[in-house]
């Protein structure tokens, strides 16, 4: 950057200015002095020549008058002492050469043959003087003296002096200026150097050093101020640049996002809307629609104006016209499903026709922009789904009917059980009873014992059938919920059972029981089954105990019946509530194995749970829950 301008150029310029100025000043002054000296020297030579002539004239005049040539020649020879005189001659009044003198200096000096005009003549570097020799006003002759007027040696000497002076002066001027210019160029160069470093390093904290208080000092100050100002500006500019860069980056990001969004929109448009279209405010098409043409096969002449209508299914045109009319009247967007001719498949396909109005400032539609989306496959799929649904519903109906049929069969089965299965049992019971009444006297003791077995087993068979029927009937019976006083219900059930019970009756510890909602006869059956079990299994204890209580949980009441009876093996408690499951030998405890199954069924239908805990021979506890809020929608 700095290579174009020599760093020292200003110093050189100042130096040159000083030296040139000095040189020319000396040259002019020297020349003037030399000219002046030259003039003075000329005048001096002429005056000297005239003086010499006068002296020779006076000394030689007698010799001429007396025609003494020797005397005249001796007088002339005296001029030898004057170094400038080169030649001299004396002419007679008639102009004849009388005596002559020529300096013997190796040069040839010409003595004119005739005397010239009186006066001083200069010619070819020689000064010659002709002077009349007069005695008593009588012209005796003419004196000629020639001297060398050549001043070149003197000029050379002057020039030499001038040259020496000039060289000396220039040297002094050079040294002086070289010394003085530092005070001027130094600060300037230092400013330049700082400026260069600032430019190179962009370090605006640099400052030039102020060394004087003159204009250069002012320049340094101004430069420093400028640097400070530029520094501030640069910082501000940097901040501004960064902000701008950030903004540019933000804008680029926004632009990219916009591009992505736009591309996505474009993809979306191409993906969702097979055809887009543009219509004027009346719904007429005025521009080319290649997508439409590709879809419907309609040429542009065909679809221009309102011709596009014709591509829709004949049956749908009325619907579409109505929608259009309404939309045009209200300027409202609309969307309808119609069938559109599809050239490629040569069939009408279901499409969604959408139209949105572009509204001007007055709220009037300027033009309509719309799309046609092919929804045929979706519609077809929907139709298929509807068909499948219908079939499914049919199958559900069928299955329900089958279930109902199965239920009916089940009912019919239990009806048969009640009638047909009971019939042989009844016969066995009846006839063995008659046998016992009529033939007891003829039967042996063993015969009577066998008859007793037949009677008791037949009775048990009858009980099993009865229990099974009860189980089946209560399972089907609709629940009729009422508010039940569980305390009263448990107590009265226990009293009834205790009255029928044979053997020692257990002591009852009855806790407080809450009121719950449930079917009176069914819940009574639950208490009855659980309490009769408790009575039955505790009967062999010395001091049978039955405890009834309840626990309140979050959503349920837990009721329990605890006895100190035979208990059961907890390994089999999963089997406890199954139909005809018995964990005890029939010879120890009579029973059909239906009671707990019935309890389970009733409680489950009430939305509750049943379980039991026991250790063999250490009593058992049966639990059942009933919800605090009875769900009337359950049954």
């Amino acid at each position, binding site marked *: 950057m700095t290579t174009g301008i020599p760093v020292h150029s200003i110093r050189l310029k100042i130096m040159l200015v000083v030296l040139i100025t000095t040189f020319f000043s000396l040259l002019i002054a020297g020349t003037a002095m030399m000219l002046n000296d030259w003039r003075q020297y000329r005048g001096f030579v002429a005056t000297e020549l005239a003086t010499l002539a006068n002296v020779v004239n006076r000394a030689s005049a007698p010799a001429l008058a007396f025609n003494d040539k020797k005397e005249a020649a001796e007088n002339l020879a005296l001029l030898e002492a004057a170094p400038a005189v080169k030649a001299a001659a004396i002419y007679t009044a008639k102009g004849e050469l009388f005596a002559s003198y020529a300096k013997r200096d190796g040069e040839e000096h010409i003595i004119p043959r005739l005397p010239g005009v009186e006066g001083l003549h200069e010619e070819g570097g020689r000064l010659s003087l002709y002077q009349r020799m007069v005695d008593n006003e009588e012209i005796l002759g003419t004196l000629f003296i020639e001297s060398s007027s050549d001043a070149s040696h003197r000029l050379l000497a002057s020039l030499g002096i001038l040259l020496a002076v000039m060289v000396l002066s220039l040297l002094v001027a050079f040294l002086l200026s070289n010394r003085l210019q530092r005070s001027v160029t130094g600060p300037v160069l230092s400013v330049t150097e700082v400026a260069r470093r600032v430019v190179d390093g962009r370090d605006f904290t640099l400052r030039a050093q102020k060394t004087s208080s003159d204009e250069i000092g002012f320049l340094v100050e101004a430069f420093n101020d400028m640097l400070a100002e530029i520094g501030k500006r640069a910082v501000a500019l940097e901040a501004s640049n960064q902000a701008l860069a950030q903004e540019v980056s933000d804008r680029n990001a926004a632009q990219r996002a916009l591009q992505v969004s736009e591309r996505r929109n474009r993809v979306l448009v191409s993906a969702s809307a097979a055809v887009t279209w543009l219509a004027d405010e009346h719904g007429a098409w005025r521009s080319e629609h290649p997508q439409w043409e590709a879809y419907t096969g309609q040429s542009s002449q065909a679809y221009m104006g309102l011709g596009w209508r014709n591509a829709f299914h004949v049956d749908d045109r009325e619907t579409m016209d109505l929608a259009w009319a309404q939309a045009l009247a209200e300027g409202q967007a609309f969307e309808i499903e119609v069938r559109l001719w599809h050239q490629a498949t040569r069939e009408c396909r279901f499409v969604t026709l959408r139209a949105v109005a572009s509204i001007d400032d007055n709220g009037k539609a300027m033009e309509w922009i719309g799309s046609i989306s092919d929804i045929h496959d979706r519609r077809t799929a929907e139709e298929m789904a509807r068909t499948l649904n219908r079939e499914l519903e049919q199958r559900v109906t069928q299955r329900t009917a089958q279930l109902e049929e199965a239920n009916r069969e089940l*009912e019919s089965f239990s009806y048969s059980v009640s009638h047909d299965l009971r*019939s042989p049992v009844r016969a066995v019971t009846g006839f063995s009873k008659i046998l016992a009444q009529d033939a007891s006297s003829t039967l042996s003791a063993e015969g009577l014992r066998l008859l007793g077995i037949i009677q008791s087993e037949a009775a048990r068979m009858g009980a099993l059938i*009865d229990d099974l029927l009860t189980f089946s009937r209560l399972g089907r019976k609709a629940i009729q919920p009422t508010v039940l006083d569980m305390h009263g219900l448990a107590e009265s059930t226990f009293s009834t059972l205790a009255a029928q019970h044979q053997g020692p009756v257990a002591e009852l510890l009855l806790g407080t029981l809450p009121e719950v909602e449930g079917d009176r006869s069914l819940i009574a059956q639950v208490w009855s089954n659980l309490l009769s079990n408790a009575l039955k299994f505790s009967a062999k204890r010395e001091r049978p105990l039955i405890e009834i209580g309840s626990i309140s949980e979050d959503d349920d009441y837990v009721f329990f019946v605890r006895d100190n009876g035979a208990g059961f093996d907890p390994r089999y408690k999963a089997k406890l509530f199954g139909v005809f499951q018995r964990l005890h030998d029939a010879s120890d405890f009579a029973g059909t194995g239906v009671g707990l199954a019935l309890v389970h069924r009733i409680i489950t239908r009430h939305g509750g749970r049943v379980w039991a805990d026991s250790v063999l021979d250490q009593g058992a506890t049966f639990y059942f829950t009933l919800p605090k809020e009875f769900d009337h929608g359950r049954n």
Partner: protein
Amino acid sequence: MEEIEHVEILLVEDNPLDAELSMRGLQSAKLFNRIIWLKDGQEALDYVYCRGAYAQRAAALPGLILLDLKMPRVDGLEVLATLKGDPETKSIPVVVMTSSQEEKDVVKSYDLGANSYVVKPVNFEDLTEVARQAGMYWLAINHRAGN
């Protein structure tokens, strides 16, 4: 209860063992000779309306019908519906015999106009109890028997 002895009782029952047991049960009341055993609903209707095998019998309505429900050909409910639907015969007391206290049968029988029900096999004690519950009919029967 002496009047009962003179009442003609129809026992409609397809099962001969059940019929025998029922008849033996009623024996103690010396009603055995007054009991006419009919094997199904068809026979019962023929008897009441003097048709078929009973076309020649003296036309007199029975005083009481003990009716089983499940029978071949014409079942008990059909017999009940026919008799109670006929003004001529609807005053005949009909006691339905059931195998159990199966609600469905009992309810349906009452709907059709049955006067009472007993659980098989029928014995004299049961029948007397039923007669007591349905006293009004027995009064009518007594009255008719008196005639």
